[in-house]
């Protein structure tokens, strides 16, 4: 693969570019080189697809794990009598899980999962490894968010549900969780945004996400400015869209109480 030089490019460039000042020409050249030459924009779109898949996959795993852990922890803490042995063991496991996952850097967790535990070979396996690692990591944060949400609901709500004859699970599902969810939505949104940005760390297990795409282009085009600034803008726009969507969802949920 040959490196495209400015001199080579300007010769074949459209006439209107030749009439521009040189500084602008060089800028356009850089854009050309980063996005258009050899269809390099495809690195970004492919990378974005991977970033989305990893974010959504990790989100799902994180929410499922987080909910389960939060339910175990708050059920344990809500017991009036001494909790039974199984619940106590589960609660301890959950506590350890949260402590370990929040107490070590995600980068290190990725290295361990990628090079010690899962050691993926194919790109599919690498994607899976990334999703699982980020999901397990996110679950620890979601668990604490969800637990605080459940705890924030007045004890009277549980009592009212139970006094009607609903069992613990029914009261949780129909009465506590819907209210808790509404309360924690902003925090969950923050976690989702953090998760999206943290997917950039999957480059350490050689996954071709959008960050990796920018790195690849830098190595091909011998210029860092446009690829990395573009990368930052891509994340920024994604986060802004997410923020907007979450705001709409929040307002919808709030409306039901007025």
């Amino acid at each position, binding site marked *: 693969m040959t490196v495209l030089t400015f001199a080579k490019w300007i010769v074949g460039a459209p006439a209107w570019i030749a009439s521009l000042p040189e500084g602008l020409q060089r800028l356009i050249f850089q854009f050309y080189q980063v996005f258009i030459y050899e269809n390099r924009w495809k690195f970004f779109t492919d990378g974005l697809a991977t970033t989305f898949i990893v974010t959504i996959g990790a989100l799902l795993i994180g929410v499922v794990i987080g909910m389960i852990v939060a339910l175990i922890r708050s059920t344990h803490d809500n017991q009036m009598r001494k909790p039974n042995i199984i619940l106590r063991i589960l609660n301890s496991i959950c506590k350890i899980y949260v402590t370990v996952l929040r107490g070590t850097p995600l980068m290190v967790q990725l290295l361990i999962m990628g090079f010690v535990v899962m050691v993926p070979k194919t790109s599919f396996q690498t994607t899976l490894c990334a999703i699982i690692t980020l999901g397990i990591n996110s679950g620890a944060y979601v668990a604490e968010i969800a637990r605080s949400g459940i705890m924030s609901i007045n004890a009277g709500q549980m*009592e*009212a549900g139970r*006094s009607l004859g*609903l069992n613990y699970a029914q009261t949780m599902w*129909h009465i506590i969780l819907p*209210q808790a969810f509404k309360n924690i939505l902003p925090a969950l949104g923050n976690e989702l945004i953090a998760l999206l940005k943290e997917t950039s760390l999957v480059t350490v297990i050689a996954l071709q996400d959008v960050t990796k795409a920018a790195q690849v282009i830098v190595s091909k085009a011998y210029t860092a400015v446009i690829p990395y600034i573009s990368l930052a803008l891509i994340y920024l726009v994604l986060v802004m869209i997410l923020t907007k969507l979450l705001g709409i969802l929040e307002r919808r949920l709030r409306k039901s109480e*007025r």
Partner: protein
Amino acid sequence: MSDNVIIRTENLCKYYGDKIHALHNVTAEIQRGEVVVIIGPSGSGKSTFLRSLNLLETATSGKVFFEDVDITDPKVNINIHRQKMGMVFQQFNLFPHMTVLKNLTLAPMKLKKMSKADAEEMALTLLDRVGLKDRADAYPSQLSGGQKQRVAIVRALCMSPEVMLFDEPTSALDPEMVGEVLAVMKDLAKEGMTMVCVTHEMGFAKEVADRVIFMYDGEIEEVGTPDEIFNNPQSPKTPQFLKSIL
């Protein structure tokens, strides 16, 4: 045992640590169709006793029989028995994320497998009786305190309970709203509902109660008809308490 007894407690004790005896050896009976009012100073164990009846509070020792079943037995499925014991709380405890109608129909639909149409029809009929049919689609936050408590009473009634437990149902209300809630409770009593009611409304006790239980320091100090308690108390603590709340 008389088959007219619906709830019976036997030596009910509730201790917090060694020092606090919220309940101490409370033995009592509630007859079917009877209105029992529980009075007593703050901290005397009224709420603890009431909440022990449907096991919202688990007693340290002692037994609670509901319709001759020992519901303090851990093998008993308490949820089935709670369906027959409606409870009304001081703080209403309506479900804020549901409309009034949904508040009322949730339990009947989940627990009695009522159809939505049947449950709503029953709920609207009962709502109408407390004068709130037009608020069926409102959310609890859109209601006044008195309206909230009337809805809360209807919510309990929707399960067609055998007995209604009230824990200071008017204490969180502005004075001008107390009357409307008491009126609903008087109607219920007139219809023959079995009621156990913790309240500071002595007017209600005198007018509606069949029996008054006076609690003091976690124990039943005195039980009697309103006339006996208010006009001819046996314990010196009774008139002392009554004077203090005037």
